[in-house]
């Protein structure tokens, strides 16, 4: 077992795929000499050269579109969108083109493109660099959406995303890049659509994504001191969603909290809550609690930012509400 940061794990999965397979290459803004604005691609230019580690103009729709075109020719491009806020600029290409070529052609073509992006608040990047927009893409048939929360997961899931024959929106969280953990020596692919139970518990299930997985694990420790046993489950892949794992967990605990950093309204948690209420209705002993950002753009001033985005304490409060101790 080697220790690897989340950032290194992303790089490792890409590099490993690029070593093995000439059809894998990466395009993005500032990814070559600079090594990416988050340092994820550092060193890759030296290893793979400028043809396969392609710096691009600030041109998100052409960037994604070029990835689509290369993918339709059977390559497996990785496109890095510097901040997930900027997926807005490529929305047409992602939603109308990448997601639909296969369908509109009646199955004649695949678009094995991976769009990697990152975001998240907690360091005052302001309203245009701190959003969490993963839920938007879950609404588009034809796209897969992945949101890993640990080095092991990000490594295994990125590999599977690169080798998935569909377009995958791959969300990384800015504040997790430095997170380190022991990872297997050999990269172990993690299939898309498999949730991970981070912690078993009896009383409440917290279904969390991204940074909130770690916040939820912290809240679970606190809850334990109060005699409440919390199970923490990370779906990891939002589309396809491992509904069975989520439902099974809630059927066991009878209570559910969904937690993500994105705004609550219309967030991915709404979908999870719908799945749970429908498939585990008769097992619910409390309303499903939702944790997420307040309904405001992410503000700049640290005190305001801190107020808007959710924390472990919000998860803990939600846990308490589900067991009637709110």
């Amino acid at each position, binding site marked *: 077992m080697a220790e690897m940061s989340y950032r290194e794990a992303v790089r490792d999965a890409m590099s490993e795929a690029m070593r093995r397979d000439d059809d894998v290459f990466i395009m993005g803004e500032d990814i070559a000499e600079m090594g990416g604005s988050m340092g994820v691609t550092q060193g890759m230019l030296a290893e793979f050269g400028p043809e396969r580690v392609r710096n691009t103009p600030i041109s998100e729709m052409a960037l994604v579109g070029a990835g689509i075109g290369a993918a339709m020719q059977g390559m497996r491009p990785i496109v890095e969108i510097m901040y997930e806020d900027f997926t807005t600029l490529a929305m047409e290409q992602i939603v109308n083109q990448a997601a639909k070529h296969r369908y509109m052609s009646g199955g004649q073509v695949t678009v094995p493109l991976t769009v990697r992006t990152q975001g998240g608040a907690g360091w005052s990047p302001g309203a245009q660099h701190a959003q969490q927009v993963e839920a938007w893409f879950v609404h588009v048939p034809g796209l897969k959406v992945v949101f890993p929360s640990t080095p092991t997961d990000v490594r295994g899931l990125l590999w599977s995303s690169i080798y998935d024959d569909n377009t995958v929106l791959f969300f990384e969280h800015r504040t997790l890049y430095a997170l380190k953990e022991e990872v297997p020596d050999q990269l172990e692919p993690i299939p898309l659509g498999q949730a991970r139970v981070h912690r078993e518990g009896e009383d409440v299930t917290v279904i969390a994504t991204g940074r909130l997985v770690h916040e939820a694990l912290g809240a679970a420790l606190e809850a334990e001191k109060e005699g409440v046993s919390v199970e923490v489950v990370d779906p990891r892949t939002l589309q396809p969603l491992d509904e069975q794992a989520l439902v099974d967990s809630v059927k066991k605990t*009878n209570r559910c909290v969904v937690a993500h950093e994105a705004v609550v309204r219309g967030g991915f948690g709404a979908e999870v809550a719908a799945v749970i209420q429908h498939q585990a209705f*008769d*097992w*619910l*002993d*409390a309303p499903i609690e939702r944790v997420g950002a307040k309904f405001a753009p992410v503000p700049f001033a640290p005190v305001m930012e801190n107020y808007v985005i959710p924390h472990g304490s919000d998860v803990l409060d939600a846990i308490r509400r589900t067991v*009637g101790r*709110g």
Partner: protein
Amino acid sequence: MASQVTLPRLGQGMESGTILRWLKSEGDPVEKGEPLYELDTEKVTQEVEAEASGTLLKILVPEGEVAVGKTVAIIGEQGEDVPEVDVEGPAAPAAEAPEPEPEPEPKEPQPQDEAPPAQAPEPAPPAAATNGGRVKASPLARRIARERGIDLAALSGTGPEGRIVAEDVERAAVSPPKAAAAAAAPAPSGEVERVELTSIRRTVARRMTEAWAAPAFQITMSAEMTRAQELRARLVERHPDERPTVTDILTKVCALALMRHREVNALFVGDAVELYPSANIGIAVATERGLVVPVIPGCEARTVAEIAAARADVVTRAREGKLQAADLAGGTFTISNLGMYGVEQFIAVLNPPQAAILAVGAIEDRVVARDGEVVVRPMLTMTLTCDHRTIDGAKAAEFLRTVKEFLEEPGLTL
């Protein structure tokens, strides 16, 4: 040939039981020995096995209290006519005969069920309706209630905003359903709430009343627990899985003391006193359903770690309502420990026909005199309640002194 399924007597003194739910439905094939229904008896909830094979033709008592020997179902061959059987109502307390159960959730929703919850002044509810308005209950609580035929309107919720949660229904599930529950239904909050006795509660009430008839006396003694605590620490080190407690040491010590004072290890059986050769020690366990006293037999021959393992097992099962009748039978002495609640000392009520019961408080640091010096020592106060028909004061004192000595100097048990 159809055979009648009658309520069996599952233990001494059992006169009736409460059927909680059926594990088979009408029309299901049944093998002899298969669990057929769940029965709540005085002390335990258990599954009752079928005594014949065939098809479950008819369930005569879907749930509720039934006297021993009464027919509760018919097993026969598929298509066979179901013989007429006289089904009698509950044996004991319910005054009213059980009516056919109203469906908790009618398949065809009645108009009043469809009424939006926020309607203006509610018209007076029809007689059968439950408070007219919608009962606030969690889906899980509703499911459990549906499965067990419990009327939610009869329950009061402990969840947020008075919502009935699963725990509320679970608590009610052990009480006689329907008829009795309906009688208790319209208790609005703020008024006296009538809680029907569960069968465990009834048993406790009956036996404690019996116990009060015995001429009982108490003696109290305190023991210094320094050595016992050291011993416990070493035992925990050696047996990290069992993690023996002070109670386990006390159980062992009592067992050894009982072997030396046989007259305390005795039952009063009316015209005789039975002295037992083995210390079968009952441990009083508080559960959500009430007090139960599972027995650890042969404690004098068990190590402390073995006692700890046996204790953990029965306590867990007691809390889960999974004790078998055998777990509760054969006790010769009982220990009741309220130390974990901070109780310093208390008097336990006899557990007849046993001759004695030991009430144990908390270990506390107390100021005591040792060799003319004032020192602080961990002390435990024990109160022994004895049935005077069996034991005299001096005998009781000798026994308790042995217990004290063993606790203070465990080496003396050798």
